[in-house]
């Protein structure tokens, strides 16, 4: 997509995720992300809660009661979904659009990165993200999120989370290749009887123009805490400015008309 080489991405295949959280730990170790609080959340095995300034990977654990299929004897009436979430590195990234300082930028790898030494802590990016990923630290208010291990990419390494993942649930590579691989994987799973397998974030026609980090899910996105139909929050910005400008013009015209009328 650019002169630096292909855009890279993550394909997270949640059907092989074992919830080991090696991605969370590897991310924190490599990037020096602070501890995020020792809180027992009683939310299955998830004590991270959500992505934030101090958690750039988050493994969701979803326990579901399922009817026990009769006859084949399989199943315990339980399904336990696990999925490692991360910044989506959107094709149309609202955080990037609203950043006034240029701290957020599109890298030569097609990823979206915050430069900590440029960020001024204005926080505009936080409500701009349709996934609730980017977040400010409480200390000085600067914004933090997954950098796609920008430093590692520059050194020819894969991101720490992908390298740590023991089952290849997190796969790293050129986005085009990952999309093709994901399409094969989802159709294979469906052939094997996992009808509920579907991709999320792979579609370039979606509200964010397709995500750089996309997923194979086994249930609706909401189940994993993902928005079903994310839309870049700056989508309507140009139109809104046009509308505002039109309104301003109308107002000005009206005011002018009033003054013009009053001279009579």
């Amino acid at each position, binding site marked *: 997509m650019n002169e630096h080489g292909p855009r890279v991405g993550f394909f997270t295949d949640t059907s*092989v995720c*074992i919830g080991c959280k090696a991605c969370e730990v590897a991310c924190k170790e490599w990037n020096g992300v602070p501890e995020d609080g020792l809180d027992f959340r009683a939310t299955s*095995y998830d*004590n991270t809660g959500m992505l934030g300034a101090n958690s750039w990977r988050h493994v969701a654990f979803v326990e579901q009661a399922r009817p026990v299929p009769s006859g084949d004897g399989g199943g315990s009436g*339980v399904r336990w979904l696990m999925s490692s979430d991360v910044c989506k590195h959107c094709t149309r990234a609202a955080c990037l659009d609203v950043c006034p300082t240029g701290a957020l930028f599109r890298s030569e790898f097609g990823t979206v990165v915050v430069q900590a030494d440029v960020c001024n802590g204005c926080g505009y990016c936080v409500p701009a993200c349709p996934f609730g990923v980017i977040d400010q630290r409480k200390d000085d208010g600067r914004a933090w999120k997954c950098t796609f291990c920008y430093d590692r990419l520059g050194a020819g390494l894969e991101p720490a989370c992908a390298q740590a993942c023991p089952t*290849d649930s997190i796969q790293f590579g050129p986005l085009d290749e990952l999309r093709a691989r994901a399409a094969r994987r989802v159709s294979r799973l469906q052939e094997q009887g996992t009808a509920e397998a579907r991709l999320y974030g792979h579609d370039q026609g979606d509200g964010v123009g397709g995500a750089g980090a996309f997923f194979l899910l086994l249930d609706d996105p909401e189940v994993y805490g993902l928005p079903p139909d994310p839309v870049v929050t700056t989508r309507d910005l140009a139109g809104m400015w046009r509308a505002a400008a039109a309104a301003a013009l109308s107002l000005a015209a009206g005011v002018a008309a009033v003054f013009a009328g009053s001279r009579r």
Partner: protein
Amino acid sequence: MGRGGATTFQQDLRNSDCIVIMGSNMAECHPVGFQWVMEAKQRGAKVIHIDPRFTRTSAVADVHVPVRAGSDIVFLGAVVNHILANGREFREYVEAYTNASAIIDPGFRDTEDLDGLFSGWDPDRRIYDTATWQYEGLDVLPAAAHAEGAAVGEAHGQGSSLHGGRPPSVDPTLQHPRCVFQLLRRHFARYTPERVEEVCGVPRDMFLEVAEALCANSGRERTSAFCYAVGWTQHSVGVQYIRTAAIIQLLLGNVGRPGGGILALRGHASIQGSTDIPTLYNILPGYLSMPHAGGGVQTLSGYVERTSAPGGFWGHSDSYIVSLLKAWWGPAATAENDFCFDYLPRITGDHSTYQTALDMADGKVPGFFVIGENPAVGSANGKLHRQALAKLDWLVVRDFCEIETASFWYDAPEIETGELRTQEIATEVFFLPAATHTEKDGSFTNTQRLLQWHHAAVVPEGDCRSDLWFYFHLGRVIRDKLAASPLERDRPVLDLTWDYPTSGPRAEPDAEAVLREINGWGPDGAALSSYTELRADGSTACGCWIYCGCFAQENNQTARRRPGQDQHWVAPEWGWAWPANRRILYNRASADPQGRPWSERKRYVWWDGDQGRWSGFDVPDFKVDMAPDYVPPDGATAEDALRGDEPFVMQADGRGWLFVPNGLVDGPLPVHYEPHESPCANPLYAQQANPARQRPRHRHNPFNPASEGRGEARAFPYVMTTYRLTEHHTAGGMSRTVAYLSELQPEMFCEVSPELAAERQLVHGGWATIVSTRTAIEARVMVTRRVAPLRVGGRIVHQVGLPYHWGQRGLSTGDSANDLFPVALDPNVHIQEVKAATCDIRPGRRPRGPALVALVEDYRRRAGQAPDPGADGGRA
């Protein structure tokens, strides 16, 4: 089968057509190795997880079978019965490679005849006389050896015959009523799907699905694998759990073949290594047995006579022990002085970790070293251990941080309750900071017998030192102090070869020099390449015969790191696996008796007639030029006494043992016994629990009442079981101190079903108190459908899940689950039963201080246990 290690390697799991994970939560506790299970699944293998809880392993398995903790032998025994009753065994394999045809002594009586006991039981001494378990017509062990009973368990790979040899009478048609095959049929006939439903709480259909999956995925074209961990071993009948799986795998022909085998998953980086070069009291390096003071003959020749076998590689035990003695005592060890055999200490009885703790609590042990363990948290009945530590004169703890075992004297739970008082504890505690693996050279021997070398990356900080540094210099200082001693008793220390080269300002010993000594050298001083080069004449030295070859050609073979993609799939040039760099043991069995692969799909090692040698993907586990049609001549010894179609080369008869005539202290065949503490009566036999189990009576080791048969058991109506979480490391010393891990599982919790939560008014996210007659602990409540109530014998049994990582120290603190459990042990290997015991659970936090003791006392009264909590009578 003959060796104390996994028969296969994790990468080989990808070749399995069916993987049964039982007694293990592999995805959570071995997540890296689990990638090959996932690879097998993607290739179409069926993955079955059998476990009391629905875990992260179950989440990605094809089938999860919830089972009552402590009932596995009923399930596995029913698989055996399913195979035999339906003729699903791999007949050619069974006939050729197992001891199915051997005829057993006419005096043998099965548990079918004696309602849960085998012949030879001595109710007073609570041990078996194994004379009637032998092959008919074969000499039995000399009586004196029985004194060692409890001490022989680990030796020779947990139960191969030292005596014996080929059975004198066999029936190749497998029809003789006393042949092993028929004994097996009769013994397991009562293990039916109905019994599985009744005892394990597993619906019949679900059981049959598993049994059929195993049968359908075994045979010439297909193989199935078993993976287990401490979910099997940590029972009072744990060794027999594994035995039952071994019987299944032998009947189905899944041993020695790709995608087959039994994978013993070890819970630490070098647990396998710590039994190979043992930290155990009753074996020497390489599973040679430790000499016993009560063993009668005290000479080297007497030892060799008792430890060598007429057939197979134990026929060379003289070479192994003499080479070991030469490695330790060098020039001082001569043929004239029995190679210093007298320098070896003698054991006098059970000196295992739990017996030592009991002795310590009785003031019989003055000093204690604790390294790589945290018994105050990690061992069953933590209170016993802390009380014991308080009776020591001195205690040395080497660890990364001040763990609970080092700090017990001021912050143990018993300090809070008033049961211990700091000012009354005389133990002098030496806490010595240890270096981590990144700060020192050395090797790990992992779960699949693979030695992998690690290099020091940084110098340890401050006073932190490697274990090698500590022991080398401790030995050096002791030897300096004794240098002028005229006493004969000091000769073993002074005559030791203790001359490892050191380097650097801290005089760090050279770890490779130690590995080279373990590997051994020949008469010319050059490193040996194989244990077949060892000699009994003192011309060779070898610190551990099964590791011989790890330093072949003067190269550290364990440091090889040729990437897997640059080799064929077995990857023999990554690290070095004992023995002889073999990755699958007994791999001669991957070929048929004539030496041809059983099938093209499962070819692994085969006879190459043109070359006149065994060939294949792995190092053949067989004499490389012994033809399949070889028949030993009269007078042949050791491996030459085995035939060319007998693949179990460590056994005296070259066969895989369906029936174990020798080496186990609690029976030649597995039997379902209830756990030492169980809410259920044994529905299969009058014998409730393993009669030979160890259940030490001690004031600090009281037991809950045994079964519902006695009404008082209602004080402790629930089953509890312990386990690990991915996020923490065993007793927590390496994870509760690390923020990135502690935040992922920040508090001790218990897992209960919604039904139990309703029954006991437990609130999700709130607190619960779990009570046994040892103590009470508190935990946050996790109500989850992943723990299902089970219908057992017409009633509902609830199970309480307890991770055991917590203690009072670190970033993440909590009560220790092991404090709830008694010391009740498997008699073969002295492993504690912490996978099944009984408890009560109640809402809210536990009382503090003396009120905690009062609560437990109240329970004891209700259970009718006071005033003698250690007592248990009858045929329990």
